[in-house]
Structures are given as C-alpha cells and as structure tokens.
C-alpha cells in the first residue's frame, strides 16, 4: 500500500474523523484522529494493512495532550503517526489494546507515569511504579511533578503479595529474583506452577528504572546524547545512533558519506559482538563447558577488536551530531575487518560442532516455542521475531544510513523455537561481516563531521539495533534543549512476549529459553 492509497482508504472509512497530512520530507504520514475512531483506525493499520507498531509517544503540551501512535510498513508504505489531542484536564483515552495487543505495555507505562487512563485496557497499574513501593496518584512524567518530593510519595508495604493467576489446587508462585543466579541483571520472575511445568510466567521488571526520560527533560542535546549512549551500553552505538538520527532529522543535517559508512561499519561490528555474546549465554545456559569457553573467547576477541579500533570496548565516545567525533583510518578498519573475519571463522566452526552435539540440541529444539501468530500479535522484534518467521528488519523496511546500497540478506527461520533463534543469530553474524566488508570497500576519503545547527521541532529516529528495532522520539525547544525524549527499545517489545515461550515448559528450561531470547533488562527499564 502506498501513501495515496492509504490516504484514500482512511478518508473514505472515517470521513470527518481522521485527516491525513504528509510531511514535507521523508515518508511520514500524520493522521489526526478523533478519540472515537482511534482504536479501529489503529487496528486496521496493524491487523489488515500489516503495519508494525513502533510505539506510543505521550507528550504533555502547554495546553493539551498529544498521543502519538507510530506505525511503520515496508518501503513505500512508510511511517504512519496517528495523533490524538485532548485538553490537559481530560485524562481518559480509549485503549487500542483490543486490536493492537503490541500497545499493551505502552498504555500501562503511560498510565503509571502520566496518570492517563485507557478505557478498555484489561490490566493497568503495578508496572513501572510498583504497588508495594509507590503511593497511588504519583505521576512522575507530568510537568507539575516535583522530583524532590519523590521520597514523600514512597511507602513500603511488607504485606504485598503478587496476584496469583492460576487457581488450580496445589498451585503456587515461585519467585525468582530480583537478585538471582550468578552474573545476571535484576528482574523478578513470578513463575506459577503446580509442580514441574511453568503454567504462567509474569516478569516483574523496572527494578532498574532510572527515569531517563524524566532526567533528559530540559537538558542540552549534548548531555542527553550521553544518556542515550549509556542507558543500555551493550548496544550503546545503536541507541546513540538512533538519538543522533532523530536530532539530525529535526535540524535537517546532512551527514557526510564517510561518516555514514563508518557508522554502518561500527553498527555491524557491534551487532557481531552482541550476537557472539548472546551465543555465549546460550552455551553457558546449556552447561556445555568447552563451547561456553570457546564462545567466551570469541566475545572477548570481538570486544578487543572494538577496543583496538576505537579505544573503547563498547564503542563509546565515537558518535557526534552530524557525523563522528573522530576519524578512523582505513587501515585500522581493514585490520578490524580481518580480525572479525577470523572471529567469524571460529564462530562457524563452533556452529558445526554445536550442530552435532545432541545434548545441546535436545535442550534447544522444540523448547521455548513462539508461533508466528503470537509474534505478530505481540509485535516482537529483531532476531526473536525473525526466528518465528516474522520478517521485518528496519535496515530493509525503512533504510537509514544508506543501508539500501548494501547487499545483505535478512535471515529468518520458521520453527520459532530456541534452536531457530540460535540459527538466526549465527546467520546474522555472517551477514554483519558481509556488510562490514562492503563498508570497508566503500570507504573514501572525506569529512567525517558537519556542524549541526539546532532548531525547534520533533522527530523520530530509528535503528535496527542488535536486539531489534529501537525508536527514539525527540522534541527540541527553540533554544536547543530537550522538551521530550521517549525511548522505545526492542527489549520492551520482546519482554512483553517473553512469557509466551516459557509457559508449558519445565522449570529447568527457563534459563535456557531466557538466554535464547537475548533480552536486556537495562534496555527495558531505561
């Protein structure tokens, strides 16, 4: 579906309730919509016209609310932002969850942080602000909220118990976390069971909530860039890039070609390293000692390659608005590429051996199953979605950084089990090296930085991060400060669907399934 067809369809179906407006540049179509038409319009975009849901961006303006539901399709279909406006004293909106289940957690988050109510949502509350810690009616993202008074709103309810959902005789809740196992991120899992199998799994997240969106308000672009880069540092470059692209898009900046190619090179290096790390976690969870060591060597090798090339093992301090902060020599890039190819060779050897280890395969195959339909409904992203046959990669669907000039495949599988996810990770690692080869060949001399003049406006930046699509919404004031910064990381979507894969499997499968999902709590909790 292209833009003109979309406009016709929308205006024919909802005459008078929805108005389409195309942005001057880019592929964004803004649809101003009545509250009454909102759920159905979003539902049609998501279910019938096969748009993916990117996120709900809530903004408290001077006199009214603006709720922005972002959707994207493949190529020409572009971006559709559905906008609903309402005066500030009106805090009740219709929920779109009935049609767009992917928006479930977005509405819960907005309810907690802005105090909005979504009519028709089955379960609001106890999400970011845990019921046992925070009083009711605390709305930290509202402008009138005083952070200094935050401690007055606290309570500590020692009697709080999680709501039990399974009402079978003998059912009990097994809590895991927030501190569990060896070196793990903090999150609480409430596993409900009557014995051996997990019947329901409810992850309770946001123990690591640092309120970054609140922290960013009123700060300079430079300061917020540091937050964007550092809130989930295992994929620091991707998130920093998404933020830079949003600001560059507001300011109409042109990034020089050399900087673009280097950005592609570094983004793919990060993907390769992150996937090697995910593969190491899978080997570790299946207690395959030699494979774990081999994958550990690979991950450390790739960290050292990144460190040698850029001085920082997680690629900090490279990005700058309008390009890069420092140039990398062609020879250094070529060397990093050769080292990465060597690492890939070892990764391929590891794959060959894993394929022949039955004890390993038994624990991954037909375990942690996610059906394509579920992946679609929950709006899963990245390698997890592609392992279930849901193929949408932002580098292809809505190219940025000139990805359209690179020749690469988007690997996918149909099975949707743990082994399919592992295969997708391995195949993507190979594609990353392929892109890096092309990037090095395309490196021509030139500038790496173009000064950017900040101006008022708002824009969305998107990047296919190693874990899936990352969306950063930025609004700047006229003096170049951040008025609203909204991060929708891929792990937010994938945590939402994670419980699908654990239910009906045994307890001992839980850590293995968790590792195949390659989830980041830091990304989700932001």
């Amino acid at each position: 579906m292209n833009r003109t067809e979309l406009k016709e369809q929308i205006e024919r179906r909802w005459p008078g309730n929805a108005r389409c407006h195309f942005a001057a540049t880019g592929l964004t179509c803004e649809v101003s919509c009545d509250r009454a038409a909102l759920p159905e319009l979003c539902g049609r975009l998501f279910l019938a016209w096969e748009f993916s849901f990117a996120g709900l961006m809530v903004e408290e303006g001077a006199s009214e609310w603006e709720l922005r539901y972002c959707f994207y399709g493949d190529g020409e279909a572009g971006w559709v932002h559905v906008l609903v406006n309402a005066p500030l004293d009106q805090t009740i909106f219709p929920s779109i969850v009935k049609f767009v289940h992917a928006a479930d957690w977005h509405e819960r988050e907005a309810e907690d942080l802005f105090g909005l109510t979504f009519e028709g949502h089955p379960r609001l509350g106890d999400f970011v602000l845990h019921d046992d810690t925070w009083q009711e009616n605390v709305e930290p993202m509202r402008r009138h909220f005083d952070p200094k008074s935050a401690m007055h709103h606290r309570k500590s309810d020692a009697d709080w118990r999680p709501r039990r959902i399974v009402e079978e005789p003998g059912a009990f809740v097994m809590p895991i976390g927030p501190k569990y196992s060896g070196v793990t991120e903090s999150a609480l899992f409430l596993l409900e069971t009557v014995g051996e199998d997990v019947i329901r799994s409810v992850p309770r997240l946001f123990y690591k909530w640092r309120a970054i969106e609140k922290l960013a308000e009123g700060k300079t672009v430079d300061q917020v860039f540091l937050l964007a880069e550092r809130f989930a540092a295992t994929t620091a470059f991707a998130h920093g890039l998404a933020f830079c692209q949003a600001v560059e898009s507001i300011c109409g900046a042109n990034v020089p070609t050399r900087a673009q190619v280097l950005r592609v090179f570094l983004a793919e290096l990060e993907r390769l390293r992150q996937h090697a790390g995910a593969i190491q976690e899978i080997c570790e969870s299946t207690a395959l000692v030699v494979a774990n060591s081999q994958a550990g060597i690979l991950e450390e090798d790739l960290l050292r390659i990144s460190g040698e090339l850029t001085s920082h093992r997680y690629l900090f301090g490279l990005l700058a608005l309008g390009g890069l902060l420092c140039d990398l020599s062609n020879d250094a890039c070529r060397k990093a590429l050769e080292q990465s190819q060597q690492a890939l060779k070892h990764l391929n050897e590891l794959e060959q051996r894993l394929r022949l280890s039955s004890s390993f395969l038994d624990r991954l195959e037909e375990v942690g199953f996610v059906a394509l339909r579920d992946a679609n409904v929950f709006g899963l992203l990245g390698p997890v979605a592609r392992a279930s046959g849901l193929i949408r990669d932002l580098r292809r669907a809505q190219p940025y950084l000139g990805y359209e000039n690179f020749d690469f495949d988007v690997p996918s599988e149909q099975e949707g089990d743990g082994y399919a996810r592992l295969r997708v990770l391995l195949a993507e690692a190979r594609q990353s090296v392929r892109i890096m080869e092309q990037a090095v060949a395309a490196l021509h001399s030139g500038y790496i930085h173009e000064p950017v003049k900040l101006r008022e406006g708002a824009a969305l930046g998107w990047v296919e991060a190693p874990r899936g699509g990352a969306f950063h919404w930025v609004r700047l004031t006229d003096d170049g400060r951040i008025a609203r910064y909204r991060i929708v990381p891929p792990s937010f979507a994938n945590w939402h669907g994670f419980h699908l894969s654990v239910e009906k499997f045994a307890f001992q499968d839980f850590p293995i399934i968790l590792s195949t999902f390659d989830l980041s709590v830091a990304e989700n909790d932001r």
Partner: protein
Amino acid sequence: MSQWVINGIRRGIKTTAYPRGTEGAAGVTPGLPDGGQMDAATGAALLERCPTEALSQTDGNVTVDYRRCVHCYRCVRDVERPLDWQQTYEWGAVRDNQIEFGPAFKRSIHVIVVDAGDCGACLNEVKQLNNPYYNMHRLGFFITPTPRHADVMLVVGPVTDYMRFVLHKVYDAMPTPKRVVAVGACAVSGGVFAGSFVCAKRLAEVLPVDVEVPGHPPPPLAILHGLLVAVGRKTPASVLSPPPAAIQADAVKS
C-alpha cells in the same frame, strides 16, 4: 564429545599473564585520561567540555577525578590540545582505611554480584572474568549466587531506589568479615545518572564501600585488580591523576 576436548586443547592457553606479569594485548582496556601541567586557558577549555565535572584546575595543574570519568573522550577527541591518554588498567582504589581481611581470605574468595541498575556493560565485563582470557578461578575468586557464601559483594550500577532494599538484604545476609566493591563510575559517583530522582548519588550512600573501581565500564582487568586490592594482594591505585602526592612532590622540587 571427544571432539570438544580435542578442539578445546587445540585452541591453546589464552589466559592473561596478569597479575604476575602485565597484559599488553591491544583493546583490553579503554584507558583513562591523564592530568598534568597546562596553561590556564587550555585547561579551562577542557574543563568546559567535560560533562561530569571530572576535571578540575588548580594553578597550572589539571587534575582528573577517575571516579567521575565516563569515557566520553571529549577531552581528547576533536580538541586542539588533548589530554594524554593512558592505557592502564590497575584502577582499584581503597575508600577508607582498610581493616585487614585476614590471611584465610587471601586465596579463596566467594563473590556475589548485585546489579543495582547497571546499563549492561559493567555486568558484561564482570561476566568476562569467567572466560578463558581472565579465568578468575585460578586466583581463587568464585562467583556465588547466595549471600550466605559470599565474602565480597560486587555492586554495579547507579543504585536505583528499588534496588536499595535488595542491597541491604544481601549485605545483611553475608557473614562477617565482608567487603563491598563498587564497580564502575555509576556505582562510584552516579555517572551520567547522578541527577535522576530514583538513583542514589553513589553506592557509599547506601552501604559502607571498601574498594572503588572507576571506569565506564572498567575492563575485566580493572575489576580483577579491584578484587585483588580488596583481599590485600595488590596495592591500591589513586583515583586522582596526577595523584595528590605527585603534585606535592612537584611543588617541593620547584
């Protein structure tokens, strides 16, 4: 199965020479900036670029506070007169006067790792300590999931409000004597999250901290150094560059 064993042996020994020797491989550490003498105007320009106030200036000297450095590279990249950059990794510093842990703890230490809001990088670097390159088991360090077995608590992240309760619970459950090691700029000084209303300014606000390992994230070797400092097997580093003693010595000479 035998294939795995043969393959494992064929890859050879990868383990670092540290702490007996030094590690010289490229990319093992992000390094840290080095303070030093500098004229006032150049120093002021650098101070302005630093987003976390890690730099300070006193009569011709620029001092770097490693606890605040977040590796943004703004004092070395895209500036006229950059600071020197050091590829060191022995960053573990003692916070207060340390009481002796006792000889029984020197060669066998169980470590519990608590994530208090970490971005993932520090935790990933702690995880690397178990890979063959660093293999901390050879030095007698073991990760334990339970506080009851733990001698040392390693905390990463800027200490979010929700995690305070967990930190206290873990700390109280640990048998004495015990040590707390704060790993990473966020745990040491709050890093870029220091201004958040749900984060503590530093771990020391919540628990008594014995050893601080700056860095954002500190590389595995720096964390290893921090652990070795905690058990008294390595001498602690200074969190300031140049260290206060060096400035005094310079002043005496001139």
